[in-house]
């Protein structure tokens, strides 16, 4: 459950999932400047990891639902399958084989131990899958299980077990899905659940009982490098090293994860109260001044965009029935008009890059800029030319362009408001770029909850809006851009593009060929790039501040890795 720490705002809807990615993955060994007389890495010591968001305290990976809990879980949980820096699935505890993308055979490593001393066997995975299946739709991960053959029957009580799960021996299992899909592997729930630990809850269909249990809240266990020793709700969690960790004994004695207010991060890093923390880009200049801290930057898995309402969502279908922004040249011009380099530098301390497609560069399906038909750069002249061609001209001489029918044209741009003063400034900057090419623009700041509510309901005041998405391990962008999904906020439908997305998950078309699948997604990104139903603005990098004392830290776009190799100078 490597999760990228998306240090955006809580308000942004993030769909980061178990992923992985990261360009470079460059591991920097620190050259400590303080007291350089001691030798480098050594065993022992406590690492204090700070986070800003309060954790909920659901500390079993099979039940968690928040980013903050998952940051703690990274230390005590080890997934069966991980994702590499390009978000491609890689064996971890389990290896897999498949011929047809329908039947998978998984082989577990031998000798993997749970924190309570039990050996991890395939029955624990079956237990996890059956638990989720028996809880059914009340469980957040039901959609990661209901594609297994027989899971629905099991949920309805028509079967005593899930027919698609066939145990071969303690270390081998064969899983049959209800049909072949290109993304069955990415989709399946990849974490086991200890049978002995949860014996008293076996078969319980009420998720509330699971969530409230001591096994989840007070003494959770996993198979990861550190075990949870003590939890102080809402404040901190103490983890100690797990000597029998299957990849080797961890070097650190302890990890303390604690919640601290965002305003304290810089000071605590400076005086050594915190050894490691992700932070918001706006803190970069202050953190750069600290001598005892190094900064680790990894490509993130989220992107921001400016969407235009091109239609509405009716009866489960996206219908393109609004024409204010229907003109493709208009939308292209609006993207050419924005100096995104400058904007990212100004408002995100340069910790991001402009993108020309709705896909973060780290992802393996991301199209290279050279493959895309249009390479948008800051070019106000080009923007003006496109507007002229599209018929948006200033006919009444007031300095602003009118629409092709000679009527007043104004963009009503909306941005969410969370009380962060920089949001209004950055949104204002966008409208100014547009006014520079002659398009009158107004800005509305809307309270964030109301904002997403209005976007989702296609409220009439929402026509051009700022938003962000994270991407998951499964590259399929259907949930965001398909024609039957409510999260297609711009309400964009393009038959050809939809066809490509459908083909990319169709085993008949792609089989198990990843290259073929990627090509279809690249084609889809080309259409998006040309049409720009939403203007891709930028991708944001994840940044961590790490004390110089800490060594061996590995971070990828999916999150922190190899924690058992981390060490701290005493």
């Amino acid at each position, binding site marked *: 459950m490597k999760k990228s720490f998306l240090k955006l705002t*809580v*308000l942004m*809807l*993030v*769909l*980061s*999932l178990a992923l992985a990615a990261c360009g470079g993955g460059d591991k920097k060994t620190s050259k400590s400047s303080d007291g350089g007389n001691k030798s480098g890495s050594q065993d022992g010591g*406590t690492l204090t990891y700070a986070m800003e968001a*309060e954790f*909920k*305290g*659901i500390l079993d990976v099979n039940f968690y*639902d*928040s980013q903050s809990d998952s940051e703690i879980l990274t230390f005590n949980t080890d997934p069966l399958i991980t994702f590499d820096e390009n978000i491609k699935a890689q064996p971890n505890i389990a290896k897999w084989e498949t011929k047809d993308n329908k039947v998978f055979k998984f082989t577990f490593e031998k000798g993997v131990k749970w924190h309570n001393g039990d050996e991890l066997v395939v029955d624990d995975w079956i237990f996890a899958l059956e638990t989720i299946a028996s809880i059914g*739709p*009340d469980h*957040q991960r*039901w*959609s990661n299980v209901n594609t297994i053959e027989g899971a629905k029957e099991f949920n309805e009580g028509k079967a005593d077990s899930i027919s698609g799960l066939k145990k071969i021996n303690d270390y081998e299992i064969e899983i049959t899905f209800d049909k072949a899909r290109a993304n069955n592997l990415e989709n399946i729930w990849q974490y086991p659940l200890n049978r002995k630990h949860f014996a008293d809850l076996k078969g319980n269909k009420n998720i*509330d009982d699971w*969530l*409230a249990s001591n096994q989840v*809240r007070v003494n959770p266990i996993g198979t990861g490098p550190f075990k949870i020793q*003590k939890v*102080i*709700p*809402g*404040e*901190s*969690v*103490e983890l100690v090293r797990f000597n029998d960790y299957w990849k080797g004994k961890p070097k650190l004695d*302890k990890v*303390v994860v*604690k*919640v*601290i*207010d965002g*305003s*304290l991060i810089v*000071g*605590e890093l*400076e*005086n050594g*109260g915190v050894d490691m923390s992700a932070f918001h880009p706006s803190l970069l200049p202050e953190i750069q001044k600290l001598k005892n801290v190094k900064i680790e930057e990894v490509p993130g898995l989220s992107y921001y965009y400016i969407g235009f309402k091109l239609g509405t969502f009716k009866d489960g279908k996206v219908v393109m029935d609004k024409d204010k922004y229907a003109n493709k040249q208009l939308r292209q011009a609006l993207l050419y008009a924005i100096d995104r380099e400058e904007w990212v530098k100004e408002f995100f301390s340069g910790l991001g890059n402009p993108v020309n497609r709705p896909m973060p560069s780290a992802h393996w399906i991301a199209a290279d800029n050279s493959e895309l038909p249009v390479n948008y750069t800051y070019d106000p002249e080009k923007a003006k030319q496109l507007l002229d061609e599209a018929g948006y001209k200033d006919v009444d001489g007031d300095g602003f362009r009118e629409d092709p029918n000679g009527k007043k044209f104004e963009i009503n741009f909306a941005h969410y408001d969370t009380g962060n003063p920089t949001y209004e400034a950055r949104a204002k900057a966008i409208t100014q770029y547009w006014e520079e090419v002659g398009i009158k623009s107004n800005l509305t700041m809307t*309270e964030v*909850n*109301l904002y*997403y*509510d209005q976007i989702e309901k296609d409220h009439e005041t929402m026509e051009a809006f700022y938003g962000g*998405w*994270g*991407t*998951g*391990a*499964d590259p399929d962008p259907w*949930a*965001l851009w398909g024609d039957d*999904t*409510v*999260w297609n906020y711009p309400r964009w439908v393009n038959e050809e593009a939809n066809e490509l997305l459908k083909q990319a998950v169709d085993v008949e078309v792609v089989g198990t060929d990843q290259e073929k699948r990627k090509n279809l997604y690249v084609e889809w990104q080309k259409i998006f790039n040309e049409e720009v139903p939403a203007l891709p603005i930028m991708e944001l990098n994840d940044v961590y501040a790490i004390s110089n004392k800490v060594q061996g830290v590995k971070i990828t776009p999916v999150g922190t890795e190899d924690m058992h190799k981390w060490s701290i100078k005493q």
Partner: protein
Amino acid sequence: MLKYTLRRVLAMIPMLFLISIIVFSLAKLMPGDSLGGEIDPANTDPEYIEQMREKLGYNDPIYEQYFRWITNFVQGDFGKSTRYKIPANEIIMERLPNTIFLSLTSLIITYVLALAMGIYSGRKPYTLGDNTIAAANYIGLALPSFVAGVFAIYIFSFHLGWFPSNGSVDISVTEGTFEYWLSRFHHVLLPAFVLGLLNTASYTQFLRNDIIENSRKDYVRTARAKGTSESKIYNVHIFRNSVIPLVTFLGFDIVNLVGGAIITETIFTYPGIGQLFLTSVTNRDYSVLMTLTMMFSLLTLVGNLVADILYGIVDPRIRLD
């Protein structure tokens, strides 16, 4: 007195009922609901969200939701926190001890400082000492707690390193030991000072003014004429009369005791009721939000009553019936 108390207690019931209607409607009128922030397309499908909304009854009309809530509430079922996934009263009880510890410490600090400074200023009005105290107090009063908190952290935590800047206890000490309590005390001291600052200022000035006023009264002159020692006049005669207004504050202090301090707790990342209240509002965690609001309302009403009754006790001139 008993009749009076009973009457007041009975009058609280309709009041609480009205408060609950207003707060519930306001909470529900806030845009968004507790599921909005969890939307995560890679992870949850819209069907799950819709199903949960239906299950939690968010799609029903407000009055239906209200009646469902109030029926459960009066039966002692405060609902389940949508964020923490455990019953609202459990999560509140988890945080309450922290808040009581913080406010009790801050209350002690307030009273000790206010009494010491107030008595000194009252006995020696218009001297350098009195003016210094007054100046300090007005600064304390004018300083918003978010400014005071940030400064306190900067100076005492980051610069001098005397106090921790966050948390309620060091997680590595064993619970129940002497070190544990020492660590808790160490963590609570700085936020307690910041929290106490504001009240100290007003209490001090109240006490000072009362002492000055009383010292000019006839009974003081009489006592002086009888040859009573100056310290006895101040410490017994005047003091007893001057603490009357302070005693009435005690009722309101009860509310502060459990109400937590939203700003101070947030700045110091101190997991108490104030911080919980703030998260429950931002996450639309209705059951926690409503339980806390009802708790605050009840305590405010009780606090008022206690203040009135205490007033009658310390000052027999006041008759309650």
